[in-house]
């Protein structure tokens, strides 16, 4: 059946967010999709009889398929609410009607998976806004958000924890600094030195370095240069 994708690839992130309801698997979803594509009268009761499921389980499976359909449609372009409902419900042949789709859209907007642009009455994917921007004739300039200083320190700590191969084996600054491209050297160095002053990290002196390398190293403002950082536990 056209329109419903059970392929994971385009929806990986969203699928991992959406936990599967107990009682159905990817295979089950594929079977339902295939069944909906066959000729003949369709209803949720017939699905239940065909698969040996309860009505509740059928509804959960159809909801999941509808969710994927909505996301798939909005990946291509933003759509007005009525159009989105119509295009989604049409593939379910009354097994998942427009009222249910409307309620599902509202739920996904609340979750932040979908968003509305009230002025234009458009729905779009906030995690992939490019189609909306194109539709509006806008260009998006990606600028990393400027986090508060406390955020930077916590993010540095999180990054060190991620990169550390083992406790008390420090992370070299050559791997750490590039993870914060929007931060100046001074800002980054200050944050790391402050963490050391608080006893959150330890610093490892760099024994020898060229002038070119100096930019990469952490400078404490007192003539000391450090080449790696580790978490104190």
């Amino acid at each position, binding site marked *: 059946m056209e329109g419903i994708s059970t392929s994971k690839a385009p929806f990986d992130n969203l699928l991992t967010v959406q936990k599967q309801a107990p009682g159905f698997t990817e295979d089950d979803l594929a079977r339902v999709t295939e069944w909906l594509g066959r000729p003949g009268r369709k209803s949720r009761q017939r699905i239940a009889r065909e698969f040996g499921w309860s009505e509740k389980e059928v509804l959960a499976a159809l909801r999941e398929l509808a969710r994927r359909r909505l996301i798939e449609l909005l990946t291509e372009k933003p759509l007005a609410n009525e159009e989105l409902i119509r295009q989604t419900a049409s593939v379910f042949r009354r097994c998942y009607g427009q009222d249910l789709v409307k309620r599902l859209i509202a739920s996904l907007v609340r979750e932040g998976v979908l968003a509305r642009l009230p002025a234009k009455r458009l729905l779009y994917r906030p995690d992939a806004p490019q189609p909306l921007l194109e539709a509006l004739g806008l260009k998006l300039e990606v600028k990393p958000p400027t986090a508060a200083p406390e955020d930077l320190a916590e993010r540095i700590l999180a990054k060190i924890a991620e990169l550390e191969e083992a406790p*008390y*084996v*420090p992370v070299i600054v050559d791997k750490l600094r590039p993870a914060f491209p929007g931060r100046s050297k001074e800002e980054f160095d200050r944050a790391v030195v402050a963490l050391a002053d608080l006893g959150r990290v*330890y610093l490892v002196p760099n024994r020898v370095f060229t002038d070119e390398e100096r930019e990469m190293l952490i400078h404490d403002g007192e003539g000391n240069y450090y080449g*790696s950082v580790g978490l104190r536990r």
Partner: protein
Amino acid sequence: MTEKAITTGASGSGARGCLAGVSNPFARGVVRSAWEADVVDVESIHGEAFAALLDLIEERRQGVHGRSILLHGFAGSGKTHLLRRLRLYLESRPDPFIPFIWVWMQTAPGMKWRHLRREVVDNLVRQRVNGESQLEKLLRSAAGEFEHRLERIADRNLQVVLEHLARGRFLRDARAWLLGAPLPDTVAERLGIGQADVDDAAAEDAARRILEELASFIRPTPFVLCLDQLEQLQTFPGDQVGLFAFGELLAALDRIENAIVIGCVQTELARELDRVLMQYVRDRYRPLGLPELRADEVRLLVRARLATEPRIAACRPAGASEFWPIDLEKLRAAAPEPLLLTPRSVLYACAKQFEEARGGSLPEVPLDEFLRAEYEARLGEAREKLSPDSSTMILSDGLPRLLHLGGCEIRREGLPRWLDHELRPGHGGSIGVALAHETAQALWRKLARMHDEWRPEERSLVILIDALHPLSPHARRTRELLEKLEQRGARRLTPSREALAALDALRRLLGDVESGDLTHQGKTPELAAVEDWVRRNVPPALGELLDGFARAEPASRLASALADLLAEKKVLRAAEAAAALRANPEEVERCARENRHHFGLLMGTEPVVFEKTPAGAEA
């Protein structure tokens, strides 16, 4: 744990007087070898890391070959101390027997396998556990399947030597061969082994194969191989060749099925290592970091050290804490922030407090004076240990270190086989250095290749024949080759025994600073300060050697090139010679004056240089 005070009547100056006769239990802060005796150990310190080492051993004992371990720790964090604990643990559990080998890796990268062979065998034969050497124990345990195990070995000489050792024959000579020492032909003949004249590359390869075959012989018995201070493979900080050698060694040893390899490296080297080591090397080991001391561990350490001097408790004033005379709060201030708190920094701070408690203070020796004393101590040791076996290592490892301090760039890779190092002095030019330490035949072959391939216009050449490897009076062809090379401008230098001892002492001093094993007032001195001291205090014997290098510079290359030119042209105007050699006429004139035995110089409106024939040489 409660801190109960053990009270006495002593107080104030009484306590100080009481302590005057007590030796400072915190004075000793460095464990230099895993074979040291009489070391105070607090088993709970680095307990997790120790457990990880035991897990590795158990894993290998079960035949599971996971990754080796590379132990990271700051200087003074207790890496060698932990290995010593491992040795004692293995000794206390002799069944199953697992040999323990500890190697201090201060060696030139180009000699790492020969160094490792010598140290591995030395550990096996010299270190006695319960009255028996480890090698004796291994041979005894192999008795039931000795012949079967010998068949695993491809090297016939190794088979023969192991058989001698197992049967208690020619023990001294067999051990010498196993160590890699060259044997006189008569001795080799008596042992029934062949000797090949090999160059450096082949000698390295042979050493590696012997180690692999020895490991194969003792299989299935696993053995622990600790490589300590791997950073010493670097000739100078930033030396990438040394780091590549480090990686190559770890990767190769990890492939030995029954080897349990534990490498140790300073945390301070982490960045250099990370940037240089190839992925295939990283895949072979997992890093294990030593943490800093926790507050409870600091207390345990202080308590353990105080307990080594029971008289301290008797001096304790009434109401004083059990840690008296140590104030644990003051130790916190001694933490070397933002670095980690190590056992060594704690012990130094405690040593200071102890001295203050007895009314004194730790002697504040100026760095220069301290370094002189340390150098002299090492010089005495070097003079005693100097031997033909060690002189090659001393020159290979020590000379580049010293020349690096003099501002030379050192190159060891991509050189012709007859060249050991290439130096590039700061002011330009290039000097090739060849160490002549091979056996007679191998040396002749090396010099012959040198004669054919050396181009004086590319680099100057210095040939080092040290005092412990003199040329045999019968080596006529070798002497002829040397003379030809000298006529073309090569310079022969003969480092004296004193120069070799001085060089050994200096390289050990520098090595100890780099590895953090030298402490001055509780801290490792700054390497730059020590290097500066070395530059200002080069011993006279070494100074002469360095002068020899200075004289081997471009001026001599010019002499050699001029000799080649005049061998063809016989007589030339100085200006013409200068043009042909891309030098200036004044340089050519000076060169001719300085080499009167080779060239003649006629001054006039246009100076002329000519080749001196043997008859003309007397003019």
